């Protein structure tokens, strides 16, 4: 079975969902995707393509922004979850790490992590997980008692991931973890995410503009444009396909500026899923 769209029941299945904001603005126009147990799946596309909205539709955060899933379903191990509130979704084992980190600035690093375990009973298991998070993110250890507002951007991103980890998720929705960070830090964070995926068996759905790095770690990818999935395939296939690179991911060779005339007329493949 391929790592992405295999047969058998996936961990998460998004089936042709439509999302409308404020009852009028159609943002997602039929998005379908699948995340297998323990997989890393990339969701690529430019600004405004609908990546964040897709993640929020899964996590239930959409409703606080006056958005609504009006068609289609989101299934978690086969059971529909798109009508559930954000807190219930977390209890199922799906946690979103929001774009822009969103740590609790006035709480210490330690308190931020403990808050992440809100849905779980306290006790020894919680203490163990706290230590576990610190072993994955050793940089945070020295910052334990510092208010999260004062740590660096990279540390905040680590804290946001660590906080999500405290809820013991089976699936983590990562929204633009590379945003605003130096390339070395980005690599460090992605390495840790890959380790979490391997060692803790946390599946990852990763929304990224930085396609190069996302496809390096993901097994399968979806490309979105204006509220639709326009392409999907194995990470390798996507990163090798010249057309995809050129039209969606901006990965063509640097410096080889082409005339607009050379750009192929590209007809988008229509997709009718499920």
């Amino acid at each position, binding site marked *: 079975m391929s790592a992405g769209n295999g047969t058998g029941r996936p961990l998460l299945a998004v089936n042709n969902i439509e999302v409308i904001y404020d009852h009028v603005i159609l943002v997602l126009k039929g998005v379908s995707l699948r995340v297998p147990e323990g997989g890393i799946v990339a969701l690529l596309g430019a600004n405004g393509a609908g990546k964040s909205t897709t993640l929020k539709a899964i996590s239930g955060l959409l409703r*606080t922004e006056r958005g609504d899933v009006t068609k289609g379903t989101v299934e978690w191990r086969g059971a529909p979850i798109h009508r559930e509130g954000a807190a219930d979704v977390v209890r199922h084992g799906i946690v979103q790490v929001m774009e822009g980190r969103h740590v609790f600035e006035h709480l210490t690093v330690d308190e931020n992590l403990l808050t992440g375990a809100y*849905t779980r009973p306290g006790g020894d298991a919680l203490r163990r997980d706290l230590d576990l998070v610190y072993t994955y993110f050793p940089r945070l250890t020295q910052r334990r008692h510092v208010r999260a507002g004062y740590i660096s951007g990279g540390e905040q991103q680590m804290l946001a991931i660590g906080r999500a980890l405290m809820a013991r998720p089976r699936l983590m929705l990562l929204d633009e973890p590379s945003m605003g960070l130096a390339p070395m830090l980005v690599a460090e964070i992605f390495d840790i995410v890959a380790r979490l995926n391997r060692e803790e068996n946390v599946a990852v759905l990763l929304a990224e503009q930085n396609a190069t790095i996302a496809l390096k770690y993901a097994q399968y990818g979806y490309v979105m444009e204006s509220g639709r999935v326009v392409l999907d395939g194995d990470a390798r296939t996507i990163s090798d396909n010249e057309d995809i690179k050129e039209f969606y991911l901006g990965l063509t060779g640097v410096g080889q500026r082409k005339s607009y005339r050379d750009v192929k007329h590209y007809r988008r493949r229509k997709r009718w899923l499920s």
Partner: protein
Amino acid sequence: MIDVLQHVVVGPFRDIGSNPAFFGEVVIGGILAGMLYSLVALGFVLIFKASGVFNFAQGVMVLFAALTLVGLLERGLPVAAAFVVTAAVMIALAFVIERVVLRPLVNQEHIILFMATIGLNFFLEGFGEMLWGANVKKLDVGIPDRSFMMAGMQVNQLELSAGVIAAVIVAILAVFFQKTRIGRALRAVADDHEAALSIGIPLKTIWVVVWSVAGLVAIVAGVMWGAKSGVQFSLSLIALKALPVLILGGFESVAGAILGGLIIGVGEKIGEVYWGPLVGGAIENWFAYVLALAFLLVRPQGLFGEKIIERV
């Protein structure tokens, strides 16, 4: 000129020095009055911390709690039972407010929520009047309004009990916010609604909890003020005294609300007694606001307010 300075700068201190026992009485009176300001301010702080909403209706909640308690006592309920029922009413009120006011307005601008609490203010005022009538009522909870001598100073027993109760409540709240899971969640929600939601903190529960706690604090404040000066509609105006307390102490700080209340309570009593005669009295009425104004100019986040963390 020298004469004026003599009166303003030297005279009052000479009076303080010449009768320290009386000065002690003034300070204790101020502390105890300040405790009551603190209690009202606490209600504001709780809600502001957890939801970023400035609850304009806090003063009316104090009034409403006191009215309910008096009404129940008048109908012949024993004191303990009346307290329990009043607490239940305030908690029920928190549920209703969450459902009817806060939930439909989630993710709206703070100013919109603030306006909603103004509406709530008028509603509660009218509703309380409809239920319990508009007369001034006497509230007797069994603590005598008597004074006794302590270390050569007169201390009012009622005020002393109020002070002690306020101190206990404050201690409990401080521990609750710093050490418990719900308390942490409350602070998390105050920092970032959406992030709190993303890790599974249910906002509904949190809001019901803070409004309930604010309601319970309002009962205590209402009872203490009511026992002192009767339960009447002007009780809701002590909310206005809580404002300078908040500016002084900082909107997000439980400790700030306490200390701010004490500073204002003591300050205005001392000002009134020693400097009042120089300007014909009534310092007590404006002292708090002038102090608040000065603080806004010098330290707008208050003594213990949370610094706005800005990243560059």
